[in-house]
């Protein structure tokens, strides 16, 4: 018997004489994929440890210093506390406020990364069990040969089959465990070291996203890097309420797939509405456009309280924890399918399906935990069909909202509970007076967190009143979304790599993340359209991709109908669900690899340096709320891609801000001469919360500038920056002189005006850094 101890063992022999016989050319490779499948030379940091990229992180952190905004004055995470950390006080473990805040950020991003990695693990394990570990990874056929740019970059391996992803996941889990450990009381205590670990968790997160998405694209045959992926229906108005309706909520597509497959099998497609919220919905439409998307995660209570769904199937992540409570109110049945979100339900996985169906049909059980997506899907369909007729009176008659509203005493608790400080009290009193206009405005800006209602001492169902008053708006929610296309093709990268790096395409702006918007979802669509019209490349995913669809131009067209899905100037590119964000980071990495021919393999720092200096990409996460969003953002940041979050993002407790006013911060060594040259504050920030949509747009345009822009490219970028600044802020930007290196950077159409500004500022032409090879 030959028994191997180490995962990364690889042994072979030319010839062996033994009792067993004679063996020639025998080779066993285990674990670490044998290097034979990839010619590229391994860079310095394959499978980097948590300190392997500390040097790179410190370069970034030296320029973009953390600005901490503590959530409160104390630390409360061990029983030696609470500790008062005001002033320069140290806690009982010796920690000070800056380190404590960065520690909390690390815990958050570890939770985020763990969530994606655990999701990836579940998908990969399930897909291997179903399709075999030898199932090939294919995200876009021959046009997308770099199937896993982030995995290649970070791990230094080139996965070819589902089974190859296992080792990547082992690595990610090991690193996350180590990072989480550093948050233990009396372990890491330096804020910059914590930040470096935050970046590490972000990088791991991106790899986790990639693993999850390439696995499901390959096995479930989603659109494979298709610019013209089909359109799907979105919005509560698209649902045929005469049919049984299933709602899937969460992030793991497997139960949805099972529902769709079972309907197909039973010849029931088109007879049961499969509707979804959050990324499960997006991925369901990637699998089959018979599924419909209800809306982003903030639609959950609104949709459930509408009474429409007969059965609610939850999986993991971004599921309101009161789904069961809300479902019971409308007599809807709940099937939980994830170990990570059991909802207190009895585990029925081992019970016969008939028994579970019977209990749910009769209402003997309000819900069940079924930890087998295939089984859960079948049960969901059977229960939905069986309970729907009796629930036909389910769309509750509109309550007498005026009467309800009359209980309001104007105590303002609802407003004081509203995260967006919306003028709820006045609107409720207007409802009492039968004026529904104000509450309609609140509805448009509301994220459905329902805290207003929780706070009401008179127990007015404030949120229900609001949605009832805005019912007509809901009925009009009929939109089209282009389903997630997945990766960006290598050929697209080859075409746009030049224009992006030279600056001729002024930027790639990614709209991603949660739906916790400061002011309703409309702003995301408006920002996206603004940049798509300016012929930036607009990329999107997840809830943001949904919000973008919920907008119509004068002709009634949604953005996805107006703009192509190509990764090219003017495109609006929906890559897919949250895990598809990997393809956005992947595209940046592929520019370095495919267009600029940098070696990718285990070569993080060089590639990140390239992206940072050359690829004018910016992320906009307008509703960033979750630990996952924080982790993803930090993944982008470590790659040198700035991220703008909405004003609530200030609650992530720290920004990473450059100081344009400190000239000394922006010197860089000229790759030709080695001389220190001033490259200007580009990109100016790495992680910043914007106060308003207008500010975010100006920032986005500005943050697309890069040290290595050509004169022409810089001129184009400045055109957009100046134009937007002038339009939304009313003036020419005062900091303009910082971005003009020589007169060739000045947009010709604005030459006169800019020259005047430069002159006033005492601007002088500087030596620009040489073009890097």
């Amino acid at each position, binding site marked *: 018997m030959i028994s191997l101890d180490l995962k990364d063992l690889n042994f072979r022999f030319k010839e062996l004489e033994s009792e067993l016989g004679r063996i020639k050319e025998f080779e066993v490779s285990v674990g670490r994929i044998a290097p034979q499948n990839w010619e590229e030379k391994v860079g310095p940091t394959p499978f980097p440890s948590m300190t392997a990229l500390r040097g790179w992180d410190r370069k970034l952190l030296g320029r973009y*210093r953390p*600005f*901490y*905004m*503590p*959530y*409160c*004055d*104390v630390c409360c995470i061990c029983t030696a506390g609470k500790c*008062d*950390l*005001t*002033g320069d006080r140290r806690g009982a473990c010796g920690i000070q*406020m*800056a380190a404590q805040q960065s520690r909390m950020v690390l815990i958050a991003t570890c939770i985020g990364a763990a969530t994606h990695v655990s999701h990836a693990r579940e998908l990969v394990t399930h897909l291997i069990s179903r399709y075999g570990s030898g199932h090939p990874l294919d995200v876009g056929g021959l046009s997308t040969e770099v199937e896993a740019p982030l995995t290649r970059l970070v791990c230094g391996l080139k996965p070819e089959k589902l089974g190859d992803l296992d080792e990547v996941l082992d690595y990610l889990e090991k690193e996350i465990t180590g990072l989480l450990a550093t948050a233990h009381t009396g372990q890491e205590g330096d804020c910059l070291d914590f930040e470096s670990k935050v970046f590490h968790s972000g990088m791991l997160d991106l790899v986790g996203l990639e693993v999850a998405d390439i696995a499901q694209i390959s096995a479930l045959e989603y659109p494979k890097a298709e610019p013209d992926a089909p359109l799907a229906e979105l919005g509560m108005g698209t649902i045929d309420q005469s049919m049984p309706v299933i709602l899937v909520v969460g992030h793991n597509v497997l139960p949805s797939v099972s529902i769709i497959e079972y309907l197909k099998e039973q010849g029931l497609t088109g007879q049961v509405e499969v509707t979804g919220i959050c990324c499960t919905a997006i991925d369901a439409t990637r699998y089959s456009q018979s599924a419909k998307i209800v809306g982003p995660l903030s639609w959950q209570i609104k949709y459930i309280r509408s009474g429409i769904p007969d059965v609610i199937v939850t999986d993991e992540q971004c599921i309101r924890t009161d789904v069961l409570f809300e479902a019971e109110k409308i007599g809807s049945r709940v099937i939980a399918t994830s170990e990570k979100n059991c909802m207190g339900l009895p585990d029925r996985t081992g019970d016969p399906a008939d028994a579970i169906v019977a209990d749910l049909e009769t209402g003997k059980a309000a819900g069940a935990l079924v930890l087998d997506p295939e089984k859960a899907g079948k049960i969901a369909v059977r229960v939905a069909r069986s309970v729907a007729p009796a629930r036909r009176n389910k769309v509750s008659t509109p309550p007498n909202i005026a009467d309800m509203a009359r209980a309001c005493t104007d105590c303002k*608790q609802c407003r*004081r*509970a*509203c*995260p*967006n*400080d919306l003028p709820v009290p006045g609107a409720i009193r207007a409802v009492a007076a039968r004026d529904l206009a104000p509450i309609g405005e609140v509805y448009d800006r509301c994220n459905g967190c329902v805290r207003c209602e929780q*706070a009401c001492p008179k127990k007015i169902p404030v949120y229900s009143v609001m949605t009832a008053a805005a019912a007509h708006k809901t009925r009009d929610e009929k939109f089209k979304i282009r389903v997630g296309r997945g990766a960006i093709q290598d050929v697209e990268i080859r075409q746009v790599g030049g224009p992006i790096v030279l600056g001729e395409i002024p930027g790639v702006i990614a709209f991603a993340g949660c739906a916790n918007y*400061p002011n309703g979802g409309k702003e995301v669509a408006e920002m996206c359209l603004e940049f798509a019209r300016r012929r930036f490349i607009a990329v999107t995913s997840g809830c943001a991709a949904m919000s973008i669809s919920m907008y119509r131009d004068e002709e009634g067209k949604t953005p996805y109908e107006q703009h192509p899905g190509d990764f090219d100037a003017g495109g609006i590119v929906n890559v897919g669900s949250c895990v598809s964000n990997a393809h956005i980071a992947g595209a940046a990495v592929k520019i370095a690899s495919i267009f600029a021919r940098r070696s990718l393999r285990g070569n993080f720092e060089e590639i990140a340096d390239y992206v940072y200096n050359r690829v004018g990409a910016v992320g906009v996460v307008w509703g960033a709320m979750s630990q996952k969003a924080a982790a993803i953002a930090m993944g982008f940041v470590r790659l040198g891609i700035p991220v703008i979050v909405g*004003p*609530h993002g*200030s*609650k992530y*407790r720290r*920004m990473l*801000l450059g*100081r344009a*006013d400190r000239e000394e911060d922006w010197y860089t060594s000229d790759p030709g001469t080695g001389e220190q040259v001033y490259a200007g504050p580009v990109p100016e*920030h790495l992680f*910043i*919360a*914007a*106060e*308003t949509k*207008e*500010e975010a747009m100006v*920032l986005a345009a500005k943050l697309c500038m890069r040290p290595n822009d050509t004169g022409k490219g810089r001129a184009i970028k400045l055109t957009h920056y100046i134009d937007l600044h002038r339009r*939304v*802020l*009313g*003036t020419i*930007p*005062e900091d303009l002189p910082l971005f003009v290196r020589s007169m060739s950077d000045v947009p010709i159409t604005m030459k006169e005006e800019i020259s005047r500004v430069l002159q006033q500022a005492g601007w002088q032409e500087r030596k620009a850094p040489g073009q890097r090879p």
Partner: protein
Amino acid sequence: MAILEPWQIAEISGPRKAAAISKPEVVVAMIKRSKRPVMIIGHLAAEIAAGDRKLLDYLIDLGNTKNIPIIATGHTNRNLVSRGYTKATILPAVEAAHRLADSGWQGLDGKGPHDLAFFAGLPYYLEWTILSGLKHFAPHVRTVSLGNGYQPHAGYSFASIPTEQWLESLKAVIGQMEG
């Protein structure tokens, strides 16, 4: 009724809480004592109705009394310009705070650090997080929230008071500064 609790109920601060601006004289005294005050004005200042004017109009008046420079955040500048006020510096609010927190920053005019910062017109929670950052990392700057919702992380803040009462106070401050 004056509420000395965070306007957004859950936004508790901890041991160190803003002193309440009990009367306009408090603000006036601070301005008079300050060598280099600055005012950070968010976009809501142009939306918040204050009698027949907007909050922004009062803030401009206040700024003009002692030539207090204005940092316009969000898209506030557009509304300043439309009012003929063109000397504002445009900075995102968090960036303004980041600079203030640097005790070596020589201020908007490069002549020395600001020692007093007024905040108004920012979304409540954004102002709140920023004030927390300054409380902890800018001991050299006294912060004052001029909104009518109590901001516990400020050095000084109005209590959560009704609009009329608050407006009266603002007017009184301006009046006393002018007088």
